[in-house]
């Protein structure tokens, strides 16, 4: 049975748990697959290493946490150092190129672009960096269609921020396609 594991990691407050939730929702509600999202974080509201894991499968999912990660996002050096140890051979690692400079060695594909700066400069608001990253993860993993992922994004954000998030998602998607080309 197909079992695809994603991990969104970074610092608490970067919105990575939200990104994981939207990815899982896209798979579970819009793509017709099954998905489980879980998270682990410290007692801090901001800062500290944080991760959100998403398992996507065509059938029922038993163990809800990652066993061998297919695709991993690291938004800080700390998260990259802490959470890439179980990245699968042949897996995908997406990092923010401004913040993660010491890259791990291993038999996986590394894709990097300045995610936070893209949100700040190209989209116009740093706060949507998680949605830029989500767009990129959707493009790189191919587990859910672009359309279904966008539906999940737009159904998860407040009305007033729909256009901002649509733009963030789209730019993230395109940047990852270009960086991965």
């Amino acid at each position, binding site marked *: 049975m197909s079992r695809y594991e994603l991990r969104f990691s970074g610092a608490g407050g970067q919105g990575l748990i939200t990104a994981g*939730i939207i990815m*899982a929702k896209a798979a579970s*509600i819009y793509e017709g697959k*099954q*998905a489980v*999202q879980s*998270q682990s974080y410290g007692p801090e509201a901001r800062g500290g290493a944080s991760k959100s894991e998403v398992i996507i499968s065509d059938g029922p999912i038993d163990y*809800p*946490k990652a066993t061998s990660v297919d695709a991993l996002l690291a938004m800080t050096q700390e998260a990259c150092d802490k959470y890439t140890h179980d990245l699968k051979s042949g897996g995908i690692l997406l990092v923010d190129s401004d913040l993660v400079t010491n890259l791990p060695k291993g038999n996986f594909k590394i894709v990097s672009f300045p995610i936070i700066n893209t949100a700040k400069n190209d989209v116009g608001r740093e706060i949507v960096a998680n949605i830029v990253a989500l767009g990129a993860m959707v493009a790189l993993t191919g587990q859910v269609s672009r359309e279904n992922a966008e539906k999940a994004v737009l159904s998860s954000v407040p009305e007033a921020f729909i256009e901002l998030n649509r733009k963030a998602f789209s730019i993230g998607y395109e940047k990852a396609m270009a960086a991965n080309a």
Partner: protein
Amino acid sequence: MSKKVAFLQGNEAAAHGALYAGCNFFAGYPITPSTEVSEVLSAELPKIGGKFMQMEDEIAAMAAILGASLTGAKVLTSTSGPGLSLKQELIGYGCIAEIPCVVYNVMRGGPSTGMPTGPSQSDVMCAKWGTHGDHPAICLVPASVQETYEEIIRAFNLSEKYRTPVMVMPDEIVAHMRERVVFPEQGEIGVVPRKSPTVPPEQYKPYDTSFGDVPPLAAFGSGYKFHVTGLNKAADGFPTTKASLVQAEEERQVRKVDANVDDIVTFEEYMLDDAEVVVVAYGSTSRSARYAVNVAREQGIKAGMFRIKTFWPFPDKQIKALAGKVKGFVIPEMNLGMCSLEIERCAQGKAPVLGIFRVDGEPINPDQILDKIKEVK
């Protein structure tokens, strides 16, 4: 017509399940990792004319739900370890005064404030032995978001049917993880109403056992007057020290659960038909166990899982039967051996019991369970 679905956390599903069961009063004090129950119900209860109260602490919250229940409300509180400790005296009050209520407790690391954001299964003994004195205990341990929704409904039903507090205890992983929930239609899952008096107010006694082990409970404000106390009581609710009566009443309270274990105890048997090694698991740990059992089967090992859905009353009968047939039990749990003690008690030395105990805030992974399955000879 397709059913309504949503992508929810275990805690959010618990709140929605409570609403389905007819919960119309919630009192609580926020605590990680159960706060989302309060968040949802504070928004939803006022819409249906229910009441949401944030109390000054966990003790007051427990007192508030007991009081509200006596007026006929269907009541819930939610908490986690330290809050469960604080609630214990009043949980005992609910048991002796026979007040239906549901206590939702998310298990995090302990004792004391422990590890607020880490998962644990170390409150299962507290569910039975936390309050002093002999008393009935019912505790449900869901393993998925959908099951959390459904078990909250069952908890309300059991609390009304047996007129006693019922606990629902997901571990932090189940409480915080998100999965798709398919909502049942109205009426699809039965909702048990409270047994009301059939006699006029002047003849009513709140503990009149001529109506059976579970006497009808009148609602305050409906014209029925009666006395409620934490002291051992007579049929009219007033305190008594009459030896024969106290003995009979204590036994009846415990019998409400003990004589009905087949109605209350639920479990899942997974690949047990020819199993030589049985993993007994509950909550999120059962999901690791299922994964491990599947891998073991692929490797030709005859492994199976007995998944506990109702922790109290404990599935004694089922474990005793298995103990006579298998080579050994493997018990993975996020505590230092609480369920294992119960399994050893039920196995009566007929099969070895191998524990995997983890209290470091990390889940028990399938590999750990698989390794232990292979240790059973």
